[in-house]
């Protein structure tokens, strides 16, 4: 078993109301020096066997079609 991680974030030009709400809360709570927060998703995908190139490709296709919404999100895939 190996783990492939897919990070999905809103594209930079897309509004992130969640991140904004968190940044606002940080300020009120007195956490200083935080200029921006963006919230995205992290998927931990457990694949059978080794995380070889074919497996990672499969997860990449999965990310494209299922985990991320390419209209508004970017994603990255890596073995952890």
């Amino acid at each position, binding site marked *: 078993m190996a783990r492939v991680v897919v990070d999905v974030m809103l594209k930079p030009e897309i509004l992130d*109301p*969640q991140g904004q*709400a*968190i940044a606002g*809360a940080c300020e*009120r*709570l007195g956490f200083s020096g935080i200029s921006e927060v963006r*919230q995205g998703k992290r998927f931990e995908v457990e694949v059978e066997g080794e995380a070889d190139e074919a497996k990672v490709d499969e997860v990449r296709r999965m990310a494209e079609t299922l985990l991320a919404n390419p209209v508004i999100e970017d994603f990255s895939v890596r073995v952890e």
Partner: protein
Amino acid sequence: MTARVGVVTFPGSLDDRDAARAVRLAGAHPVPLWHADRDLQGVDAVVLPGGFSYGDYLRCGAIARFAPVMNELVPAARSGALPVLGICNGFQVLCESHLLPGALTRNRSLRFINRAQAVRIESTATAWTNRYTEGEQIRIVLKSGEGNFVADEATLDELERSGRVIARYVGDAPNGARRGIAGVSNEHGNVVGLMPHPEYAVEDLTGPSTDGLDFFTSLLAHLASSPATVTATG
């Protein structure tokens, strides 16, 4: 003296108006409390209403927990003095504030659920349920996207053992809540969190029943029988 019951409005609260209506229909006087005020205005009890405080963007109730009004509320509630009812988002705020154990997560179906729901009252030993009878089934409104109550097994066992599970869904928990838990209380019985909404079951015209009203009349009975509580928070 008419009891004065505070209803907190956070940015994004939705059911504050309805909580106030239920308080009024029960015969008490609702007092609006603003999230940004460090002042409970000497109320006898507080309702934390449903809604999407701060959009519920991070986790439901996670940001509301830090509102100035909570700084006043949390110690008074923890000590057992101040009766507090958290409904839906209010329940989530109470869990995030660690006034109640566990957490509320996404519904198992991953979808919002809006329906009239049968609920069984499991404990009448709280400030908010003493007018019900144990095992009584009521029909109130469930409307939430993150109503799935979770806690580790030890916590769940302890809740059961100490009689702090105050309400359960009848039949399968529609949201996947562990052991069908719809509501819990703290060890003093003054703080109650409830996922379904009794305040939407107080009028025949608009609700599935009027079964919810007794949460509020229970409070009045509780206040009448323990005048010390009233002065303690005054």
